[in-house]
């Protein structure tokens, strides 16, 4: 994970809680965020895979899109099919520029009278400007980020925990759907999604209730005997990496198109959307590189490391890499020449000047039990 070098200008409402609980803090997307707690990044990863992890993700942005032209506008702006979305459905999508570059990835929620868009922290300002610049006069784009808090509750026992503490069961809410629930008197919009590969959800609620809900969930976990721990951004990164989810700025970015990154499935070519013409041209022409997973033997691959062929010529570059705590392997995501993209292809990754044995592997590296 790349921790931004500039000084953070923002903190979340839980900042003091993180610091007083021994979190190692670092700037990320302009926020001073917990990287790991005293538990340690690897154990935090494993706790999320075996029980419940709580994530302060208030740095993420939320927009509400309303107005008579909102349905048509959203459909044109995002790549995914949205015309079939009815409450309480939500869907993963991409936001492209006209050249097919990925401005951001986002979650689109169909609310009863509006659209709820969840965007990455680092792209919040860019995305907002992009939506507003394209919005016709009968559409309103409202930034709800400051008033909305966001906590992710993830892990194989997350639904069990939430079922027991909410006024109505979340287990009846289907994957990629949302529901209105109340926890400890706090109205919460619960979306059954996440960024770890595990079951669970993301909670949206009034920002001033952040500490109350955070501490309530931790306390209830303890009372109910459901191991529930706060999880930092380092484990969030390794969890999403194992599960094959992209991080903007790495597997996807403005300089990367969805075809080479393997996100054609997130684009609905039956409709018109910004960037569609460019993508059709890219498909017609063929891609010059493809995103692959690479397992590396004898070293930790990291962003920027070169991938070379058995003959020693550079065929690509890593965009992310790390030790994967669940599968206990060293792995990278890399863009490589298409002829090297097949699983089982032998390559090398250059680590501190030395080529290390590596092999192209199928993504995702990890599939949780509930989806097998």
């Amino acid at each position, binding site marked *: 994970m790349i*921790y931004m070098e500039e000084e953070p200008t923002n903190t979340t409402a839980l900042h003091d809680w993180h610091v007083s609980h021994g979190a190692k803090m670092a700037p990320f997307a302009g926020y001073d965020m917990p*990287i*790991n707690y005293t538990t*340690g990044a*690897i154990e935090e990863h494993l706790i999320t895979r075996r029980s419940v992890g709580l994530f302060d993700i208030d740095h993420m942005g939320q927009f509400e899109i309303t107005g008579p032209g909102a349905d048509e506008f959203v459909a044109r702006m995002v790549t995914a099919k949205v015309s079939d979305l009815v409450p309480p459905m939500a869907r993963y999508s991409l936001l492209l520029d006209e050249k097919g570059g990925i401005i951001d990835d986002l979650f689109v929620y169909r609310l009863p009278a509006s659209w709820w868009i969840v965007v990455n922290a680092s792209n919040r300002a860019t995305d907002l400007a992009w939506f507003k610049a394209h919005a016709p006069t009968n559409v309103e784009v409202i930034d709800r980020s400051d008033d909305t808090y966001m906590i992710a509750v993830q892990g194989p026992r997350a639904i069990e925990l939430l079922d027991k503490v909410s006024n109505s069961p979340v287990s009846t809410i289907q994957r990629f759907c949302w529901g209105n629930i109340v926890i400890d008197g706090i109205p919460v919009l619960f979306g059954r999604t996440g960024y770890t590969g595990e079951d669970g959800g993301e909670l949206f609620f009034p920002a001033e209730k952040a500490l109350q809900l955070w501490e309530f969930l931790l306390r209830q976990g303890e009372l109910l005997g459901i191991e529930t721990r706060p999880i930092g951004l*380092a484990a969030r990164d390794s969890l999403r990496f194992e599960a094959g989810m992209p991080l903007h700025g790495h597997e996807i970015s403005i300089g990367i198109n969805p075809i080479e990154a393997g996100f054609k499935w997130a684009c609905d070519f039956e409709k018109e959307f910004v960037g569609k013409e460019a993508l059709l041209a890219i498909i017609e022409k063929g891609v010059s590189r493809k995103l692959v997973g690479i397992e590396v033997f004898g070293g*930790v691959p990291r962003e920027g490391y070169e991938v070379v062929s058995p003959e020693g010529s550079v065929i690509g570059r890593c965009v992310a890499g790390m030790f994967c705590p669940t599968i206990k392997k060293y792995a990278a995501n890399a863009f490589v020449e298409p002829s090297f993209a097949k699983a089982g292809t032998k390559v090398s990754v250059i680590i501190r000047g030395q080529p290390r044995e590596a092999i192209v592997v199928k993504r995702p590296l990890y599939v949780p039990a509930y989806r097998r």
Partner: protein
Amino acid sequence: MAIDKNARYLESHEYAKPSGEYMVFGISDHAQAELGDVVFVELPSVGKTVTKGAIFGTIESVKAASDLYAPVSGTVVEVNEAVKNDPSLVNKDCYGTGWLVKVAPSNPSEFQSLLDPAAYGKTIGEE
């Protein structure tokens, strides 16, 4: 942070600790805490020579790779295979089971030139 009284240190947080006629190398408790979870170590094989102040290996944590500097010169006589298989031993017991290599020193006086526990404690803001 624990400082092993029997070891001496480099400012870069590696230690050397006498073990009979040999020196055991490792990294300090302060260093392992700063690094966070250690996920990989690369160490020289038995028979390799190491030079005081020169890189003898690499240690990688979740967030970054760091060079390891030899506190004294000598020849590697033993490598901790356990820590290669389970690098988290460095976090769990840096002065014990999380040691890195054992070296036959070529110039025993080099040990005296290292930071003693009190001096090392000062460099990391303790005592």
